[in-house]
């Protein structure tokens, strides 16, 4: 009956199977590459059928309802590695973070002649890179010592910073990202801000490094000139 159940791929993609057939098909699907490939392409077709429907806008309160329901339901299935809280290491890290932020605030930067910034990132490449980092189950999330958001660091040191509530940079200015190892800041990219920014961190972020953001003149500078607006805990 292989051919018969294979044919159910269409009915499954259209949600036209009754409950028993749906279950039987799903059991079959788990072990059938051919059906999985067909199903993936049939789902593209049914998504097109969805787009073919012209309908009215949903009421504005639907968006609020969905977001409120999401807020009320903290995710509990996120399989990312979390560090245990309040180990001695963590306390030491927190102290180091505060020290690092204080050092930045005092302008105690070692001047770095490195970190020359290339041309603006190709957006697609940058995004692909960001996507691979934030979706990497082995990546870990580092909270921020200053500012709102989080830093996501892949095992190979590539990182993405997600920053909330950073106003769009004023004209003639830009936000500049820094990776700080010890007291040495290295340039790690520019961005314009906005209510929610997803910023790929250029280069890699090593253990105990801090990622920080300052407001600088357009085009960026080689060493930070102002106090950080955002700074991560040490990685």
């Amino acid at each position, binding site marked *: 009956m292989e051919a018969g159940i294979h044919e159910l791929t269409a009915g499954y993609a259209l949600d036209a199977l009754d409950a028993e057939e749906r279950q039987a098909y799903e059991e079959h699907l788990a072990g059938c590459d051919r059906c999985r490939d067909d199903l993936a392409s049939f789902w593209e077709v049914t998504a097109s059928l969805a*787009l073919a429907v012209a*309908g009215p806008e949903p*009421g504005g309160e639907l968006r609020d309802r969905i977001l409120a329901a*999401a807020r009320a339901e903290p995710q509990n299935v996120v399989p990312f590695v979390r560090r245990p809280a309040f180990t001695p290491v963590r306390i030491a890290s927190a102290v180091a973070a505060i020290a690092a932020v204080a050092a930045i605030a005092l302008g105690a930067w070692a001047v770095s002649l490195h970190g020359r910034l290339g041309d603006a990132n190709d957006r697609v490449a940058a995004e692909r890179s960001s996507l691979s980092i*934030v*979706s990497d189950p082995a990546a870990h999330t580092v909270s921020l010592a200053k500012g709102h958001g989080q830093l996501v660091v892949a095992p190979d040191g590539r990182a993405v910073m997600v920053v909330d509530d950073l106003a769009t940079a004023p004209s003639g200015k830009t936000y500049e990202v820094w990776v700080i190892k010890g007291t040495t800041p290295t340039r790690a990219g520019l*961005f314009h801000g906005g*209510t929610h920014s997803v910023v790929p961190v250029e280069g890699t972020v090593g253990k105990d490094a801090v990622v920080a953001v300052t407001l600088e003149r357009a085009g960026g500078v080689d060493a930070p000139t102002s106090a950080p607006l955002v700074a991560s805990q040490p990685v």
Partner: protein
Amino acid sequence: MRNQLAHLSEEALVALVARGDQSALAALYDRVGRTAFGLALRVLRDDRLAEDAVQEAFLTVWRTAAAFSAERAKATTWILTLVHRRAVDLVRREQRRRAEPLDDSGGAEDAASPSAEDDAWLQFERERVQNALRQLPDTQREAIELAYYGGFTQSELAERLGEPLGTIKSRMFAGLARLRELLDDSTTEGSWKPEFTN
């Protein structure tokens, strides 16, 4: 220019949702919500039920985004698939499916007329799919439209159309396979990259 999420693909947004990012969920809703609601309304024919279907689908996105694999499917496809599944389950539970005549009103074209703010891409895509549907043999189009937009199961359709169940199954498979070809042929770009209203 609301924020930097506007630059991200739907797949990247889902990855952020998997990290508990609520603004990414909001951004996904802003891009796909209208299409999702239109689809649910087409199946359910009731505003409140359609909203329920969309809400439940987006909460499923919220809960299970970590399991989504961008290699296997596009994010919009995944979301619309969740919405459709939910809408069909609801319509079957509510027994709301109307006994409509078997003519063109089973299709997408009798839905509300496009509004002015529909972007050009969506209108283009809609016409492309409707053209492809029109090129299907009548019996195949009928089976697909009644199943997808009407929420009928294959068994229900066999009974309704007075055909053997095996015929309906073959018809649906042949119809979807043909539609896949027609849509592939008419794709002007290599990739399917919707820019929903935002």
